[in-house]
Structures are given as C-alpha cells and as structure tokens.
C-alpha cells in the first residue's frame, strides 16, 4: 500500500507534465484545428531559459519562472505570426501550418543544439531536493510542486474558457469559426493568443520536468509524443480531457513497469499497445466535445 501510494504520487506528477503538454496542444488546436508538434521543443527552449535565468544568472526562483514564461508567450506569438498567420490568411489547408510547425520543431532543436551544445544542463528544484511525507502519501518536493502548479494552471485555464468573455470567444471560434467572425470576434487575435498561451503552457511543462531530467537538446520529441498521446486519450474537446489523458498515460506506464510481469525492455511497449487498442475502441477520446449548439 505504501509503495502504491508513493507510486501514485510519482505517476500523478509525470501525468501532470504530460497533461500540461496536452493542454498546450489543446489550447492551440481548439480554435484553429492545428496540431503543433513543436510544443516539445518549446518545453526544451523554456528549460534552457530556466538554465540561463535560474542556474546561470541565479535569479530568484519565482522571478526566473515568470520571466521565462513571459518570454515563451512572446515565442509563441512570434511563431504564430511568422509561420501560421500567412498560411491561414491565404486559406491554406490545415495540414500546411502543421507541416510548417514540424519544420519549426527542427529549427528550435537545432538552435538549442548549436547554442548550448550537446551537454545536459542542470536546473534547480523549486524547493530543493527532499521528500515530503503526509501520512502514507510520500513523494519528492518537486513532485508535489509539479502537481500543485499543474492543477492550478488547469483551474485557471478552465476558468478562462468557461467564465471570461475572452475565453468564451475562444470557445465560439472552436465551435464555429464563421459564425464567430460574424459576431465580431477577431479570429487572428484569437489564433495568436492561443499560440502564445500554448507556448507559455508548454514552457511551464519544460520548467517543471527539467529540474529532474536536466535540460538537453533531445528532450523535446519525447515530451511532444507523450503529450500528444495524452491528448488523444483524453480527447481534444475539453480542458479536463488533457488532464485525464495525461494521468491515464502516466499510470499505465508506471503501473506496467512496477507490477506487470513482462521483461523490462518490453514494458515500454505496453502503453503503446494500450494506446493502439484505445484508439480502435474509442477514437474520439474519453471526453467528447460539447455539442455544437447545445
């Protein structure tokens, strides 16, 4: 039981990171239909930003995180302006920006590789390295910190989409682009904001995971794949879906490693098999989108 609860904390923390990447995909794909695989590289860019501000310049933790998140907001905005906007304005098919962003994935990764070299770089943990025990539940400070930050961000995003006018505008665009435009919603602003927000969210994911793994040039693609998998499991329709998907994926992975009687090398294949089965049984994800005109 103790082991299981300890594992639950670790899986929840990992699941929260996957969920955050999935959320980054989601805030971009909801209003635009664009799947942006460069989110993993955004997380890596932010991780290196964390290295520069927190490790290298030794800024206070909160200041460093805030600065990097703000910078990521700008990176997302610029990426949208440069690679998505021209295509959307031209009325290119939705695949075109997806492919342009795949190209950006390579550009970001190589910029990191050229700028920082191949060696992994350290990031400090938010509250240092230690173990927190609350009754039977135990985990690292960083795990609890990650869970707290991610749940907070999810609550904020949910509040934004459900309770604010700007958020409702996003939802309106997601449900019917043309009608939203007719209602006077500025589509290009919504698109730009969704990319800026997506980059900031992905950046936070990178800042949360890098203190454990270090920041390195190969960290982006695995995160992009894990987050995308979580997104598909949870469904692209609703914010909660990303969280559910991330947690399911992380629990499937970690419970398999811990308890399934399969050879260690094959253990990483089990979530892949699960995913394929899941896609076949329920291709729209667990949580379906709200009906168009409810």
């Amino acid at each position, binding site marked *: 039981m103790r*082991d299981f609860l*300890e*594992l639950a904390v*670790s*899986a929840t*923390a*990992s699941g929260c*990171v*996957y969920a955050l990447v999935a959320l980054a995909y989601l805030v971009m794909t909801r209003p635009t239909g664009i799947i942006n695989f460069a989110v993993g590289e955004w997380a890596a860019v932010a991780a290196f930003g964390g290295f520069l501000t927190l490790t290298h310049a030794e800024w206070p933790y909160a200041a460093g995180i805030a600065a990097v998140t703000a910078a990521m907001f700008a990176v997302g905005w610029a990426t949208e302006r440069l690679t998505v906007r021209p295509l959307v304005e031209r009325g290119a098919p939705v695949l075109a920006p997806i492919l342009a962003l795949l190209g950006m994935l390579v550009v970001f990764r*190589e910029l990191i*590789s050229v700028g920082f*070299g*191949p*060696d*992994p*770089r*350290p990031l400090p943990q938010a509250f240092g*390295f230690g*173990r927190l025990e609350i009754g039977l539940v135990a*985990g*690292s400070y960083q795990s609890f910190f990650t869970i707290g930050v991610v749940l907070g961000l999810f609550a904020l995003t949910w509040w934004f989409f459900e309770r604010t006018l700007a958020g409702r505008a996003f939802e309106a665009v997601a449900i019917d682009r043309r009608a939203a435009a007719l209602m006077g919603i500025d589509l290009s602003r919504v698109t730009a904001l969704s990319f800026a927000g997506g980059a900031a969210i992905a950046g936070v994911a990178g800042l949360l*995971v890098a203190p*454990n*793994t*270090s920041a*390195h*040039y*190969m*960290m982006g*693609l*695995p*995160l992009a*794949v*894990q987050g995308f998998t979580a997104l598909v499991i949870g469904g692209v329709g609703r914010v909660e879906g990303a969280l559910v998907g991330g947690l399911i994926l992380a629990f499937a*992975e*970690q*419970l398999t*490693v*811990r308890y399934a009687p399969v050879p*260690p*090398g094959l*253990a*990483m294949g089990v979530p892949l098999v699960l995913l394929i089965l899941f896609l076949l049984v329920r291709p729209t994800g667990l949580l379906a989108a709200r009906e168009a005109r409810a």
Partner: protein
Amino acid sequence: MQHSSFARRARALVAAVLVAAAPAAFAQGSIRIGIITDRVGPAKPYAEPVTQGAEFAVRELNAKGGLLGRKVELLIEDDQGKPDVSATAARKLVDAGAAFILSLSLTPATQQAQTVSLETRVPHMTPSNSGDTLTTQISNPNFWQTGPLGSTQIATLLSYARSKNYKRVALVTDNSDLGQLINRFFKAGLEKSGIQIAAEEVVPRGATTAEPQMQKVRAANPDALFMTGVLTPENTLVLRAYRQLGLKAPILANYNLSVPQYTSVAKGLLDGVTFVDAFDPAKPEVRRFVEAYRKDTGSDPWNLHGYGYDGILLVADAIRRAGGTDRDKVREAMQATRNFVGVMGAQGSSYGFADGRRTGFDTNGMVVRVYERDVQGKVVHVGQK
C-alpha cells in the same frame, strides 16, 4: 510528358550534386586519417569531445614534424548518428584516400561502417566504442577496437567488490543501443560469477521519472545496484529516485558515470557512487596530456578527449612502424601493436592486440573510483586482480 521532363531535370540535378560531392584531388605528401563523428544526432555528447581529442593529437603531431616527415591531415565526416550514412561516410573517406578510419559515432553506426572496411580492406578502428560485439559480430581483420569493453568494465567492478561477497544484485539500464549492450555484458559477467540478478530495469529515453523502476529495485532488496545505462539525463533520474526512495544498496556504475557532466546535473546525488573509469588523473601521461591540451585550446580536457587522442597516436604508431600507408603493412603493424602506453588506462597498463584479438584495451587497464560528495575521487582499485 511534363513529368518526364521533370524527371530528367531531377536526374541532371542528382548528377551535378554527385559530381560536386566527389572528393578533391589527392594532396601529395600528406597522410590522411579519416574520422566519422556524430555532429547532430544522439551520439553527439560523446562523439564531440572524442573528436576534439583527436584534432588536438593531430595538431601536436604536425607541430612535431608530422608522421614519417609528412603532414597529417584529418578528414572529418558527420554521419548524424545514422548507421546507413556512416557506411556512406566511410566510403567517402576511402575515396578521399584515408590511410586509416576512426569511428567515433554510435555503436550500430560503427558496425555498419565496418561493411566498408571489410570490403575495401582500409584499416578501421574505434577508439571509443565499448560494445563487446563490434569485433565479434563481423569477422573483419581490418577493424580494431580500443575502448574499454563492457565485459572488462564489469570484471573490474567485480574484482573490486569481491570482498563484499554480493549474492543478489539489481541492474538498471536505458533503451539506447549502447546501454542495452553494456547491460547484456554486465549481466553475463555477473551470472558467470554466480551472482543472481534480483531485478533488471530499463529507464527509456525521454522518461520523466525512474521511481517505478527504482521501487521495484527497492522491493527486490539487492545487495548492490549496477547502473549500465549511458544516457546522462536518464541516469540522473535513476540517481534521483535512488535518493528519493531511500535505497541503501551501494551503486556500482559503468564507465558512463565518469563523464564530468554528472557533477553538475546530478549535483548532490553522487556521494558514494562507485564507478569504473579508464582515466587516472595521477598518471604522468594524463598530467602531461591535460597540461598540453589546456595550453593548446585554453580549456580542460576530460577522459573522453583522451580516447580520440590515443586513437590518433595508436594509428600514427602503426603507420610509422609500417613505414608508409600501404594497407596490408599498416594492418600488420596495427595488429602487432604491443605495450603501447597512452593517456587512457591505469598506470602500468598498455594497449596491445595479443593472440590475434582485435580489442586492444588492457583488460587490467580500468580503474575504480568513488564519488566523494560531487567530486570524482582518487583511484581505489586497478584492474581485475
């Protein structure tokens, strides 16, 4: 019809590029040594310092008047960590007149490049790859390996730990090709010594935690934990989970834990970790190498730089004894290498290819060191005695 005109144009383009990619005319007089490295792929963190060591060795050689009175010229090819491209790079080096090829990239890439040295009989060596299978999977008389083998690493660690009398141990690796290979030979070495494997875990590339794997290790309650992975971020996760979960079994790690990146990314997690190394900072050759390298480049070398340096010197030694670059003579000279003392290896150890073997790292040439806090400690054990 439109299509075939494009096809024609495409073919014309291909032909033009093939011509452009052809090597320049052979520069008379210089001796060319080819290097296959990885500049953009997964092996980059290890291939880069080894390449820098090799470049330094060539600068040093040329400053001392070259080799056999001829200038040494280094031809460096990037295989992007892709095995098929590695074979192409090897062909290019052969075409460019390389007298010797050094492979510093991924193990499977070195494997595939061997197809070329097997066929063209150009001498070929890896001074850094440590996978045991490179000289056994293909019977290639033109290929040598002078990195410390996985089997030597585990034998050295076991000889150090003999007094500890381990009965059951755990193995933790990653899913990289080299990590899997080293794990295989660690496992074989442990089983040969009659030690039971209580748990065997894999932390895949890109994982965000190693806690489930380490929980399993904790539940198995082994006498010791052997780390066989070679990916620094994933190994850092292992160390973190080890501390986090309060494991007490001593850690004995493969050669990868000797790279200096750990002292920054795994800061605070290293104290007491035992690792096998091929580098003894107290050895006179190492002290001379470190000083000369620092003077030349302004930065400090580490153990991986020593591989590239030794690789070039071993090749230069063979070419010198062969009296030229004739492939057969160089091959014979290389195979005849004995008692060559380089930067890598314990004091008193040397490179050599005894009894027709093509693995040249001294089986008694590895050392065992222990981290003291975050600093790599002194050598505490040497060889397999």
